[in-house]
């Protein structure tokens, strides 16, 4: 038994040029703008918040119901309810300056032009440290989905956003594709700085009493532990296909789950649904990561990135 000295391990990480004190981002759409969780969590102990996706124009969102609990997970079909970029910039963005952690804006769109336009306006604000491009929302029927499911569209959306900002640009991929590495390569070619892997998996549930779909939108996105093995494989494959840093996500609830994604090749992780179980999860994950690093004699979390993946292409 090797005893390692109990030091405080370095949990900081970089997602391209985005520096994070902790490797834990709060997933877009799951954490509001952070203030909603402030009564329950010290936001200085998380890496950052990815804001709810914003679109060019205001959106009412999908009809209720928008949520269905399923085995080890959650189906959601919010439908990108948001006030649109104008109202967002005017009323909401200023208060993000108060966040004691990184603030990542999330941009959704229905055209290549949308992605460029909204990115440009949002990224221009000092309160925003980086942009995540949500090209993979499964809940805006026959609209947004296509971008992350088609390499050419993914490339064009990424290029439009790339031209609109020099801030770190994280492009969020969908698992609902035959070959995710093809999309990852297209994003890399278009100048994306990093990849968020992955958004929710398309799914549905039926109410057997009403004999009708449970969700107002019929279909939804599956998140939570149920999708973890799927998301982990996506990270593993993308890490072998491109050199871009990866933000792993999909069902991460514990430090062990986070370690799986880091070892597969993610430089950071996003936590979404686990907050709905227990808002203390993100801090518990960091505590668990520190313990693991100590017990296994690692000084820095970065040393673990890709350590289980012999096909990992990235750098630590």
């Amino acid at each position, binding site marked *: 038994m090797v005893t390692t000295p109990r030091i405080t391990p370095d949990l900081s990480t970089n997602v391209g040029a985005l520096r994070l004190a902790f490797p834990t981002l709060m997933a877009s759409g799951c954490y509001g703008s952070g203030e*909603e969780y402030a009564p329950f969590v010290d936001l200085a102990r998380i890496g950052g918040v990815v804001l709810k996706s914003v679109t060019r124009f205001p959106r009412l969102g999908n009809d*209720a119901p928008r949520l269905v609990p399923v085995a080890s997970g959650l189906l959601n079909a*919010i439908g990108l309810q948001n*006030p649109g970029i104008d109202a967002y910039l005017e009323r909401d963005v200023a208060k993000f300056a108060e966040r004691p952690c990184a603030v990542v804006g999330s941009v959704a769109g229905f055209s290549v032009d949308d992605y460029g336009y909204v990115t440009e306006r949002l990224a221009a604000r000092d309160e925003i440290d980086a942009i995540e491009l949500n090209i993979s929302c499964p809940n805006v029927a026959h609209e947004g989905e296509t971008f992350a499911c088609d390499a050419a569209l993914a490339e064009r959306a990424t290029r439009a956003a790339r031209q609109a900002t020099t801030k770190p640009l994280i492009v969020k991929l969908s698992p609902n594709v035959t070959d995710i590495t093809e999309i990852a390569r297209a994003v890399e070619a278009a100048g994306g700085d990093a990849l968020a892997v992955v958004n929710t998996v398309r799914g549905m549930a039926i109410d057997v009493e009403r004999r009708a779909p449970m969700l107002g939108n019929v279909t939804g996105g599956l998140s939570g532990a149920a999708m973890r093995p799927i998301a982990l494989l996506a990270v593993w494959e993308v890490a072998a296909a491109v050199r871009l840093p990866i933000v792993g996500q999909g069902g991460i609830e514990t430090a062990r789950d986070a370690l799986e994604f880091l070892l597969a090749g993610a430089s950071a992780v996003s936590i979404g649904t686990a907050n709905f*179980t227990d808002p203390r999860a993100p801090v518990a994950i960091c505590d668990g990561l520190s313990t693991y690093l100590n017990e296994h004699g690692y000084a820095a979390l970065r040393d673990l990135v890709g350590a289980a993946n012999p096909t990992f292409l990235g750098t630590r």
Partner: protein
Amino acid sequence: MPALLTSPAVHTTVVSERREPASGIVIVGLRAPDLAGAVRPGQFVMVVPPGGERCATALAPYECDGERVSLMIVVVGSRTRELATLAPGSALTVFGPLGNGFDAAALGDDVGLVAGGVGIASLLLLARALREREASVRLYYGARTAAALVGAEAFAALGCAVTLATDDGSCGYRGFVTEPLARKGGEHGALAACGPSPMLRAVGRIAVAGGVPAQLSLEEAFACGVGACWGCAVPLGRESAQAPAFPAPSFGERRDYVHARICTEGPVFWAHELRW
């Protein structure tokens, strides 16, 4: 409904008692002094599932006194089943209190309370607040069968009049509680209701038809419970004071409503402002 000034927090509580007044209905008492001091009628707490892996469960504090908060749980699925089997001594983490709660003052001094099933749990604290103000209160309470009519005596003990109804006629009126309400509801100055959606819609219709203001406590599947996920949407008239400033309707959409969050703008809404 104005938002209440409470400060939600994470509370580490201990189960102090467990009662099962009817099959499938369990009352769990918690030692939770801070929470007990903070809860207002009609608010809720999110209960962290001890076994993890599922979203926290929204539950309304039922009784609340001194150091103790109790929850009334009707077993319908895996999370309520897990909570209903908690033995005294178990630790239980909850966060809250959350939501706006009822506006007791705005209900005036002749109030009809309408409870369907476990909706009763949200109304006891309100009844107490109303009776402290010496409002005249009648409880209309419906359930499947006599055994499931749990807790009506507590309302009687507070001095509320009580009208009961059961689906099978085993106690009180045979049929939906909204039927006796339809006949007498107009006599009250205001209504406050909690129960399954079909019941609340019926109460809403009765209230609007009779010109009686009604506060309805809504229920939907929640994920976050804190306003972060926008999963618990309900269509609300744009003109409502409770309508969230953001978001406005989508470009090109011509609708007279916005989506409010039940967990944050609600769970209590004025019946005439809902557009469902």
